[in-house]
């Protein structure tokens, strides 16, 4: 009886799902016959590109990756002079900058450049005061089009984030004319810019890094667009996960210990089970 009920129920689900299949298969294959693929081709799909890293990759890539502190400091400079006009960095505190090998006094001075809204305990009113190292980066007022996201976590909030930020910053340009010829209706909306790495290829952010030397690096490094993009991507990787390098460095001794312990466990298992072997001929 159980089995008869089960066969009826099983066939019920199968019929229902194959019913859906029967309705879907026609349209799916007519799309396929027309375009050679199952999805309707769109200009966005054909123009979109997968993110790639800078030449030589980042110093923190791979299991042995390390921060390049000079690069992180340059990246912070790019953030401060370019990105910070529109983008906040709310989960980072000024004190965290000491991890970029800035001195305590430098961090104090850095924080003091920012005006932080705080409650005045005497009047209960919001007043702005110069920042302290314990403060976090303040919100950035923005009145233009689009919604500039907070950048603290941006490299973790995008797939392959560090490479994505680099590709996006260096990827502005004109759409491929061959694709445009196929889709004459495609146009970049007014006020938007074309960027093949952005999800729908039209981004509200105007190209932020436009000319070499836009930032004058304190350490004298030549500030090409690619260099600035690389540095700020590295900096934003640090803001997203300040413990990234510590995490990888902690991983090695842990793995070493586990490997050693597992070998010992294997040997003791072998020895314990060996006592069962002589009985083979009983």
């Amino acid at each position, binding site marked *: 009886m159980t089995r008869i009920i089960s066969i009826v129920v099983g066939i019920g*689900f199968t019929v229902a799902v194959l019913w859906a299949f029967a*309705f879907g298969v026609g349209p799916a294959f007519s799309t396929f016959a027309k375009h050679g693929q199952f999805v309707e081709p769109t200009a966005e799909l054909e123009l979109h590109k997968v993110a790639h890293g800078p030449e030589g990759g980042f110093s923190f890539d791979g299991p042995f990756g390390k921060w390049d502190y000079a690069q992180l400091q340059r990246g912070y400079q790019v953030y401060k002079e370019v990105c910070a006009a529109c983008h906040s960095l709310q989960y980072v505190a000024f004190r965290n900058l000491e991890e970029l090998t800035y001195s305590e006094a430098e961090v104090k001075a850095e924080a003091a450049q920012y005006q932080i809204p705080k409650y005045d305990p005497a009047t209960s009113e919001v007043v702005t005061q110069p920042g302290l190292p314990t403060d976090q980066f303040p919100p950035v007022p923005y009145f233009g089009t689009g919604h500039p996201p907070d950048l603290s976590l941006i490299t973790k909030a995008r797939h392959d984030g560090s490479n994505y930020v680099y590709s996006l910053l260096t990827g502005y340009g004109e759409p491929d004319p061959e694709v445009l010829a196929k889709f004459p209706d495609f146009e970049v909306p007014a006020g938007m810019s074309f960027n093949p790495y952005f999800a729908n290829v039209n981004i509200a952010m105007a190209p932020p890094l436009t000319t070499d030397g836009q930032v004058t690096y304190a350490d004298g490094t030549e500030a090409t667009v690619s260099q600035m993009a690389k540095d700020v991507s590295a900096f934003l990787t640090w803001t997203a996960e300040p*413990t990234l390098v510590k995490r990888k460095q902690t*991983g090695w001794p842990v*793995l070493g210990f586990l490997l050693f312990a*597992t070998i010992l466990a294997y040997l003791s298992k072998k020895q314990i089970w060996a006592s069962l072997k002589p009985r083979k001929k009983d």
Partner: protein
Amino acid sequence: MSFAWARQYEPQNAFMKWMDERLPLPRLVYNAVGAGYPVPRNLNYMWNFGVLAGFFLVVQIITGVILAMHYAANQTVAFATVEHIMRNVNWGWLMRYAHANGASFFFIVVYLHIFRGFFYSSYKAPREMIWLLGVVIFLLMMATAFMGYVLPWGQMSFWGAQVITGLFGAIPLVGENLQIWILGGYAPDNAALNRFFSLHFLLPFVIAAVVILHVWALHIPGSSNPTGVEVKSESDTVPFHPYYTAKDGFGLGVVLIFFAIMVFFAPNALGHPDNYIEANPLSTPALIVPEWYFYPFYAILRAFTFDFILPAKLWGVLAMFASILVWFFLPWLDKGAVRSGHYRPLFRKFFWFGLIPCMAALFYLGGAHAEEPYIMLSQFATAYYFLHFLVILPIISSIEKPEPLPYSITDAVLGGKAATEA
């Protein structure tokens, strides 16, 4: 319980003797996972995953309790407190990555444990109750994991909660009110976040309680084994300790190596980047997907795209719940006396060339975009899934002619002569 030749606990000193007469806890442990539990001597490494699942439950409870000390279940600060854990709490990043990846590993070992059960028909008499309790544990794990994923209050947390509670909204008549009751509102917000946190903290202890029942039920008939032949004599078994404690210890080491690789070198590989964006009810992600361990069931849910007597959405919800509920009926659907897939030629073919590719496909398709050809493929895989458990298994278990079984476990291990019909 247990076998006549099981070793008896003997207190080694005056204190343990005193203890044994008042609270025989050491005796309980000795009989449960010590030398007092005789286990078939032929278990292969697929039998490691029960102990490993227990281990990851403990990892989840310990890391989870620590995370709860620093987390605040309030929609205005939940996301920020998770970042606080990642940045300011000493070793907080390790606790959180271990917890997030620990959930994945818990599911990996439990899936292997379940599929070992499928292949060796571990659910067959007299072990039905172990199996039923196991399915209960799996359902509790799913509820716990789902609610845990909501707590960081990222985009996938919010929209995942919206979609999953929306499933209850598909139930006729009461659905809409049920969804509002579950969420405590019209959409996920503070009420939902708070109750999910409360339940996420509670359910692991419920799981631990059901695990105790699961292990208790296991100790009545004793462990199954790869031949599926019941234990006949003392030479078929070895004491759990030291034989299987040593073997499980090695297995644990191997799994921990993989776990450490994920936690320290790719902690976000199994997560979704969108969950590092704070929940925003006004911005729907391009693709809403659950965590990877729910993909097969999510694929089944999305396979029903056209109404057939009932609305498509209701079919999807019914099928998704049914896809797990059918496991409850397995002991009565698959009736043959022979347990192990090694001696069931027809069953074995459907297992390796039917169920396994079907599950692999569902795992892949659940994470894919809801577009062709993925929809068609998930419809095929879903159809096979139900046919396998509800039609094929009952039929093959009555028509199949099993291969000859070894007379005993000892014979199977030591290559004894008599291979006879069971």
